């Protein structure tokens, strides 16, 4: 493919590596012929079509690339877990106020749903850790040290977060909750936290894509429904927590004990929506894995 125009090589590179191994050369030839014959005004449609094909090849691997589909599903579940983790951190932040701890102790529905949420989130995390451990062991067996070096990415992100913490404390000082300095410090910490989550999810994705683990499809079949199910349970528990608080302690529910001293009900609603979105993403990943497994069984 070395003799192909740069544009053709770039377009072929947009397709997954396993796809390129099988179709890359002939596809490059078709692209070159099409480009030569195609008038300039058709170039945008041509490029759009090829890029659409690349997205399709990545999202909907077919036939011999079905195991790739399982990997895509696992990576999607990792990002869903990252999003869920962000919402979970928000929930933890909201519920650390003494008034809300008291509400959990006093009202059965609030305390019970809080416990269910924690247990479900822990189970979802455990399921993902199992898959990540299998991928990491596969990489160690492959002696794929180049990929294992990516583990430094979340560690560095974590170190950067720890570095941002004293800076945020210094920035906020003794300023009021809604002062510009305090809001800036909070925004900085939130951004640093998002960066840690994104770096971790990205690293897990890279490892799962590169690890040669024979049991990965079987692991995916077990863990993805578990992750989706436990996330759904945690989301329902979060919704129940808010409703329970609203019924048993309306004054607290309508207070300003939410994130950054904002409306508690608003914070709760936003957290629930993000959890629901993450759950939907995990359910999609699980369904895609199931259809890939069905395709493998039929093949």
């Amino acid at each position, binding site marked *: 493919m070395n003799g192909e125009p740069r544009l053709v090589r770039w377009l072929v590179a947009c397709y997954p590596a396993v796809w390129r191994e099988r179709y890359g050369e002939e596809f490059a030839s078709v692209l070159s012929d099409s480009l030569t014959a195609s008038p300039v005004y058709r170039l945008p449609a041509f490029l759009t079509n090829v890029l659409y094909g690349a997205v399709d090849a990545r999202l909907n691997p077919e*036939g011999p690339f079905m195991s790739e589909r399982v990997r895509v599903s696992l990576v999607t579940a990792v990002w869903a877990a990252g999003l869920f983790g962000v919402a979970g951190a928000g929930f933890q932040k909201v519920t650390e106020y003494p008034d809300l701890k008291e509400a959990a102790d006093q009202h059965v529905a609030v305390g019970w749903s809080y416990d269910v949420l924690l247990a479900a989130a822990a189970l979802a995390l455990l399921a993902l850790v199992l898959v990540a451990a299998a991928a990491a062991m596969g990489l160690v067996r492959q002696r794929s040290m180049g990929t294992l070096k990516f583990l430094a990415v979340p560690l560095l992100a974590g170190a950067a977060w720890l570095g941002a913490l004293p800076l945020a404390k210094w920035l906020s000082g003794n300023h009021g909750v809604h002062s510009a300095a305090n809001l800036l410090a909070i925004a900085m910490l939130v951004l640093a936290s998002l960066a840690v989550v994104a770096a971790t999810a990205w690293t897990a994705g890279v490892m799962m894509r590169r690890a040669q683990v024979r049991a990965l499809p079987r692991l995916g079949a077990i863990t993805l429904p578990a992750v989706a199910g436990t996330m759904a349970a945690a989301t329902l528990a979060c919704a129940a927590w808010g409703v329970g608080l609203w019924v048993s302690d309306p004054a607290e529910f309508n207070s300003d004990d939410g994130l950054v001293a904002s409306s508690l009900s608003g914070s709760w609603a936003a957290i629930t929506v993000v959890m629901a979105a993450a759950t939907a993403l995990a359910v999609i990943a699980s369904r895609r894995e199931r259809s890939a497994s069905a395709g493998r069984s039929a093949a």
Partner: protein
Amino acid sequence: VNDELGRWAEPALLVLASLAEGDKHGYAIIQDIAAQLGVTLGAGTLYAVIVRLEARGLVEALPMEGRRRPYRLTAEGARALGAQVARMSDLARLSASRLGLSAG
């Protein structure tokens, strides 16, 4: 073909119909479909369809000829195309009769 391939069903039929004439490589399929039916099949669409048809055993890849790889319609592919043609003929006949159009 329709049920399994979803949005790729129509371009898949075009590719099957093109290969029904004889073995062709990718760009020849695009040219044939454009010449016979006036439809411009994008390279991205063509290969999304070829991957699916090959996975289902409806077409098979032949050895490379230089940088090009010809594809052949399999017996299973011919059966799938025949079944689809029969369905489309029934639909065309029904529609023509209900619209009062002559079959010719």
